[in-house]
């Protein structure tokens, strides 16, 4: 499986993703510079964390205008798999590819810490190797991670089973003191209606080796590989 990792000026997690894909998963990965209009036949696009274009105006607001994002939108429209972590999630919401928006953390601090996440749905190509209710551990590292969506939008997310991860404690309980940024309804990650685009604030790529303290991020990569092997044509879109 070939992963394309988009690099914007200010990206910082692209090498972590590359390391995990090539060294841990033994799969193929390439970088896609943000000015490229071609995705080079990749099977999955990753929008990594960082501070694309300095987060000027709003996090992700300028990055969504990069030429590569037109190709990413077309790829997603054809059913291609798109994963956005941290700044990548912010870019996907600004681009309108995922619902909602990410606001400054309610504590106004930059938060860099481990979080527990409750898996809410395995009905996505990103979570097939997880179980609903399972608690996974991944770190966060952001200043603007407070997920917000209006009441009607939230209702749609709930009804559509589009909330994929929620911040919780080690036992899976949702509580205010384990919500690191004040996200609405403890939301840490959501998918689109078609379920081929996932955005989450935590970093699966920083939780994929025992030396880092967690391998739970591997469950997401395992899910992607599994989904790809089972149905590459339906999950990876039209690459003609």
């Amino acid at each position, binding site marked *: 499986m070939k992963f394309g990792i988009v690099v914007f000026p200010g990206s910082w997690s692209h090498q972590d993703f590359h390391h995990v894909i090539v060294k841990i998963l033994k799969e193929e990965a390439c970088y896609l510079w943000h000015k490229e209009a071609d995705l080079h036949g990749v099977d999955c696009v990753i929008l990594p964390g960082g501070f694309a274009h300095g987060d000027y*105006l*709003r996090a992700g*607001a300028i990055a969504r*205008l990069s030429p590569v994002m037109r190709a990413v939108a077309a790829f997603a429209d054809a059913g291609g798999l798109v994963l956005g972590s941290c700044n990548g999630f912010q870019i996907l*919401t*600004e681009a309108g590819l995922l619902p*909602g*928006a990410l*606001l*400054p*953390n*309610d*504590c*106004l601090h930059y938060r860099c810490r481990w979080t527990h996440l409750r898996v809410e749905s395995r009905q996505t190509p990103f979570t097939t190797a997880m179980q609903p209710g399972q608690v996974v551990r991944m770190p966060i590292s952001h200043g603007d991670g*407070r997920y*917000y*969506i*209006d009441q009607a939008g939230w209702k749609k997310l709930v009804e559509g089973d589009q909330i994929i991860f929620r911040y919780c404690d080690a036992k899976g309980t949702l509580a205010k003191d384990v919500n690191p940024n*004040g996200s609405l309804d403890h939301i840490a990650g959501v998918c689109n209606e078609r379920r081929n685009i996932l955005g989450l604030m935590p970093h699966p790529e920083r939780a994929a080796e025992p030396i880092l303290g967690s391998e739970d991020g591997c469950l997401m990569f395992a899910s992607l590989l599994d989904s790809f092997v089972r149905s590459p044509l339906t999950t990876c879109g039209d690459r003609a």
Partner: protein
Amino acid sequence: MLTAKIYVTLKPDVLDAQGDTVRSALETLGFQGLTDVRVGKFMVLTLNSPTKEQAAAQVDEMCKRLLANPVIEDYRFELEGAAG
């Protein structure tokens, strides 16, 4: 030359953590009677438009497409100066 003064603020139902912090700082300084503080963005654009109407339409489009995020923010603007 026309000058557009653009104000972007969080929608009323969106928690403004920065505004709340500024309010408590003002209270620390002894200012009383504050019920709310909202912090927003202020942008000044200088435009060369043939008419004020065209400038207004252009600035509105800029706000909708980039300067404000309609999911979380409201905007308003004022145009000053003469067109042409």
